[in-house]
């Protein structure tokens, strides 16, 4: 089975390489990660550095993307903001992936009552529109980066649970599982060593797309005043602060939004590309 998964990866990579959009997405993502990690080195200014002489100045040589209402350099705040966005994206999706994956795997594998109960719970959560749920949870937990991650993470749990459950159900029926059971493998072993590796593909695709979604939600929540509080730079929060100055300092609204959009676009490209590459039957 190990040899088979090796060739699967290689084949996937070949197909992925042909997809220009996906490559674009991947490159943008790499740049973002690099910038986020080395923000201190890359950004021309600190994210909280205020210059009272340069309040709300449009883009210029000194400040490539202009300054905000406190005289802070927007480009630098965007760069530091990438760190926040990526953190939220990764942590939130990890929460969704592990919690949702565990729920889905258990529900799918054990079936019966457990499956029923777990899926009912997921249905209840799905009855509440996700953005609304994120807002309520975020409000309940209070402001802050960690609470934001948790709130966003929780909202995506049902999607991963369902995905995992569907994968598990389809694998469970296959004969090599029966063979493993006949050999005396324990349930845990079967889940970890046989079932999970075969569910990877859809989970990878969903994770990529969910990171995009998480970043969007984080920006939305910050825009609404929940989540990250000033002076910490978050792209959504920057948009919210720019609202009163829409008429005169439009650039303040344009750049953070552009950052959000490009990031999400890149992740969507990558996710779509992965989906096409991993499932040969999909037609464009």
């Amino acid at each position, binding site marked *: 089975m190990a040899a088979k998964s090796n060739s699967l990866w290689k084949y996937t990579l070949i197909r992925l390489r042909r997809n220009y959009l996906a490559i674009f997405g991947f490159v943008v993502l790499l740049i973002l990660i690099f910038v986020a990690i080395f923000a201190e080195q890359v950004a021309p200014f600190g994210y909280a550095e205020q210059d009272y002489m340069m309040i709300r100045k449009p883009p210029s040589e000194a400040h490539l993307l202009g300054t905000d209402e406190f005289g802070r350099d927007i480009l630098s705040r965007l760069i530091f903001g990438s760190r926040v966005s990526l953190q939220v994206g990764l942590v939130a999706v990890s929460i969704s992936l592990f919690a949702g994956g565990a729920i889905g795997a258990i529900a799918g594998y054990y079936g019966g009552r457990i499956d029923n109960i777990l899926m*009912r*719970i997921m*249905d*209840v*959560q799905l*009855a*509440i*529109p*996700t*953005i*609304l749920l994120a*807002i*309520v*949870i975020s*409000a*309940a937990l*209070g402001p802050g980066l960690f609470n934001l991650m948790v709130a966003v993470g929780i909202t995506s749990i049902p999607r991963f649970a369902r995905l995992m459950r569907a994968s598990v159900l389809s694998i469970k029926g296959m004969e090599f599982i029966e063979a493993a059971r006949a050999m005396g493998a324990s349930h845990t072993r079967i889940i970890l060593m046989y079932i999970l590796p075969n569910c990877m593909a859809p989970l990878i695709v969903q994770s990529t797309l969910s990171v*995009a979604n998480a970043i*969007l939600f984080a*920006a*939305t929540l910050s*825009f*609404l*005043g*929940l989540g990250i509080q000033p002076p910490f730079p978050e792209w*959504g929060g920057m*948009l919210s602060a*720019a*609202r009163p100055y*829409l*008429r005169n300092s*439009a650039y303040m*609204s*344009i750049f*953070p*939004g552009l950052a*959000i*959009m490009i990031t*999400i*676009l890149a992740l*969507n*490209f990558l996710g779509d590309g992965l989906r096409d590459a991993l499932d040969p039957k999909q*037609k*464009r």
Partner: protein
Amino acid sequence: MLKYVIRRILQLIPVFLSVMVIIFTILYFTPGDPARIALGQEVTQEAIDAFRAEQGLDDPYIVQLGRYLYKAIFQGDLGYSYVMKSSVSSELANRIPTTIKLAFWSVVFSTLVGIPMGVISAIKQYSLLDSFVTLITLLGVSMPTFWFGLLVILAFSVHLGWFPSMGFSTVSEMVLPILTLSGSSIAIIARITRSSMLEVIRSDYIRTARAKGQKERVVIFRHALPNAMIPIMTIIGMQFGMLLGGSIITEAIFSISGVGRLMLEAINMRDYPIIQGGVLFISIAFSLINLVVDILYAFVDPRIHVK
């Protein structure tokens, strides 16, 4: 058929109950004293204690939960908001029509724009038009609604001065909010239309229709599109539900007094009864819409309703 509908409705009831319990519980454990929120900062401790005793805020969790559920289900009483000084039901009733109008017209607009986009894109696959539409839909899906709203205001209100940027009473006021809210929906509907059409166009029965000598236009619009609509309808219905929830942002940007904005204000003011009532309403509406879509699906596809 009727049995199916009734069964589905009955299945929703435990879901609604659970939603009420969950929201109540989340808010119950949120830090903050409801008494202080209701009465404000300037009152004495005695007043606070009296209020707490009166409202039963010192009773155990289960008792409070039970009380809330009982009043909501059997008395239709969703509580009273001290912040707004009126009952939750009346506040909701005031705003619900606005939000529904916003969501409804956004869905209509999205459908009217999205479906043709998807159809054209599918028919002329690989053409420049197709790439263009695909690009727009990708942008639409990646663009945050609140940013789109700001850009729309910037372009049409600030610079062109065509439409106002606040309110929702006149037709002119309605244009920009509907456009904003529709942004991502148009993209989603166009995408699903495109992929559904592409799949249907490759079907054997489309080939049969052409083999009959049918004109291509008729093949597309009378054979392909109706078959493609079946999954598209589901998405449109879902969009309606999602827009109900997503209207929060649009209402915030355009200062529209709908349920979404009410929720935001309630969250800022820690107005728990309103939050509970609002989430409940939106969840019920969402679930019912999905149910209606499922039933419609069964009606439209003869493979399901004709045995």
